[in-house]
């Protein structure tokens, strides 16, 4: 046990561990001080931090660009919600179905693409296509109420029912915080495993990796399946937090884009990048809302224009993302942290 912990934290500079610890403590204590608005923002940040890490396994570690991660969110959300609505099966049991469903979808895309050597841009567009296919398909699937939307029963809850995920946002906050921390630990373990090095070899030069004897098909498949399965958990939480699901919202391409902006802005392939990216982008969006509101500007689209300009500036100025730059600034130059 001690050995595992030593390995997990080994190689991270002392200062990094302290900063990470302070951040974690601050996040644990946050609901004590945060109002309901700030809490909602924090939930959103953690949600994107978690999914960003899941996406990063596929793109950042193994180099496979997925532009359709909304597919796995949606499959997770719809599977768990439909089981709950139709059979009264709780979300944690539902998760046992949702994760395999999403993982299977990931395996399907991966199998088709990697077997036929569909790569790069073509792979990215295949992932969009499957997600769009699912969006229109769910629009017409009567079992999940089609485009009319699937609603989970909502009532006033006197206590937090963790088993059925019915209750106060604080409960969701701590679930997502736990998930984000576990994902960070899991990602570090993966990245430092034998498989993690194989992934990075594939990312850097797939031909070379194959000639070095790495079964690239197998390891790319594993990356997609892990990423899809992890993402579907966020979908389950989404379903039980918002209590309503519309294919047009859940599976839409803009959801997929939202998911990957965080890790790209934070730093693709880094461990902390997706988390930092989620803080930056969600923080930016909320700051813009507040600022425009404060200035009395009520123009639909104005916020998104500023958001787009900020994205543009970040990507032009910091091509590798914010975290690699910030890491150097605060003196944490250790690789892979």
């Amino acid at each position, binding site marked *: 046990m001690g050995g595992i912990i030593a390995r997990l934290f080994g190689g991270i500079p002392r200062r990094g561990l302290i900063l990470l610890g302070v951040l974690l403590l601050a996040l644990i204590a946050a609901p004590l001080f945060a109002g309901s608005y700030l809490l909602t923002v924090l939930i959103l940040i953690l949600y994107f931090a978690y999914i960003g890490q899941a996406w990063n396994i596929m*793109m950042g570690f193994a180099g496979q*660009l997925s*532009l359709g991660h909304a597919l796995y969110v949606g499959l997770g959300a719809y599977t768990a919600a439909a089981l709950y609505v139709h059979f009264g099966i709780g979300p944690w049991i539902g998760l046992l179905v949702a994760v395999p469903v999403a993982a299977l979808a990931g395996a399907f895309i991966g199998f*088709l*693409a990697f077997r*036929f*050597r*569909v790569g*790069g*841009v*073509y792979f*990215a*567009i*295949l992932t*969009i*296509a*499957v997600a*769009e*296919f699912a969006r*229109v*398909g769910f*629009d*017409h699937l009567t079992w999940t109420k089609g*485009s009319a939307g699937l609603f989970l029963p909502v009532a006033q809850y006197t206590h937090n029912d963790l088993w059925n995920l019915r209750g106060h946002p604080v409960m969701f906050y701590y679930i997502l915080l736990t998930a984000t921390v576990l994902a960070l630990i899991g990602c570090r373990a993966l990245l430092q495993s034998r498989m993690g090095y194989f992934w990075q070899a594939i990312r850097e030069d797939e031909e070379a990796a194959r000639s070095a004897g790495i079964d690239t098909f197998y390891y790319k498949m594993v990356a997609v399946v892990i990423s899809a399965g992890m993402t579907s958990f966020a979908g389950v939480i989404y379903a039980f937090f918002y209590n309503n699901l519309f294919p047009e919202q859940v599976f839409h*391409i*803009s959801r997929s*884009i939202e998911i*990957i*902006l965080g890790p*790209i*802005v934070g730093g*693709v392939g880094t461990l902390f990048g997706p988390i930092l990216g989620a803080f930056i982008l969600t923080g930016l969006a909320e700051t813009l809302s507040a600022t425009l509101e404060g200035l009395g500007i009520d*123009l*639909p*689209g*104005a916020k*998104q*224009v500023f*958001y*787009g*300009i900020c*994205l*543009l500036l970040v*990507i*032009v100025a910091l*091509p590798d993302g914010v975290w690699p730059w910030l890491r150097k600034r605060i003196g944490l130059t250790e690789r892979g942290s």
Partner: protein
Amino acid sequence: MPAEVYLNVAVGGVLTGLVYGLMALGLSVIFGVVRVVNFAHGEMMTIAMYIAIVLFATFRLDPLIMLLPIAALLFGLGYVMQAGLINRFITRPEHSQFLLLVAVAIIMINVLLIIFGPDAQNIQTAYSYDSFQIGPLIVDAAKVYAACAALVVTAALFAFFRYTHIGTAIRACADNYTGALVVGLDVKRLYALTFGLGSACVGAAGTMLLLIFDVTPAAGPAYTLLAFVIVITGGLGSMPGALLGGVLIGLTEAMAGLMFSPSAKSMFAFGILVLVLLFRPQGIMGKRAA
């Protein structure tokens, strides 16, 4: 349903598909030469459509006449985008280029939203409700004009790439980047020209498509996706492939809309894309990439 209905819808689908093909041709030319996937493609087309709406409202210009000036405006937009922004991204990884163009797309959609509001707009020409009758066939005049214009623009582009010096130089860049640099071609300027030309296709296609469809600021991403589907179906980088893909997808959407439900039509387009990626990843007319 009588057979004429199917035939009518099929012909309408093919004509719309030719305009789609022109739009996708722009994407294909840009990717084939610059090797950047233009994720703001559909958004640029909605810009062209709104320019057409403004010109129509102010000067009552017929879309068939506006086609050239709007294509020229979009050429300028594309040239500036490539020269000012994208050129410095050509050696960066795909996800970096993707983020850049997504940011551009977000800005475009929302600037349009601020200026024009969220409602659908269209234009009414003198021939909006005309139709030609050929035997049992009834074809919308607007679709015929749009498709003919799309064919003319496509032919002009083909001729440009085949017979002019600049066109040949651009093809040289596409074939061999290093070789083009070695023989002293100004690759960055040629890239900007190419992006401009691709954008001009979109400008022309958008103007023509306004004869057939409404436009909303939010329509951009759907057109971007449509262009991807068409280009990959036809073969990324293949000019005839883009046109063929456009016709195929236009036909598929029209038939699916008739036989199933209009809201399910894009599912069939994506279904075709998945099939093509599986069995012929280089596309129908594409050459096998290394």
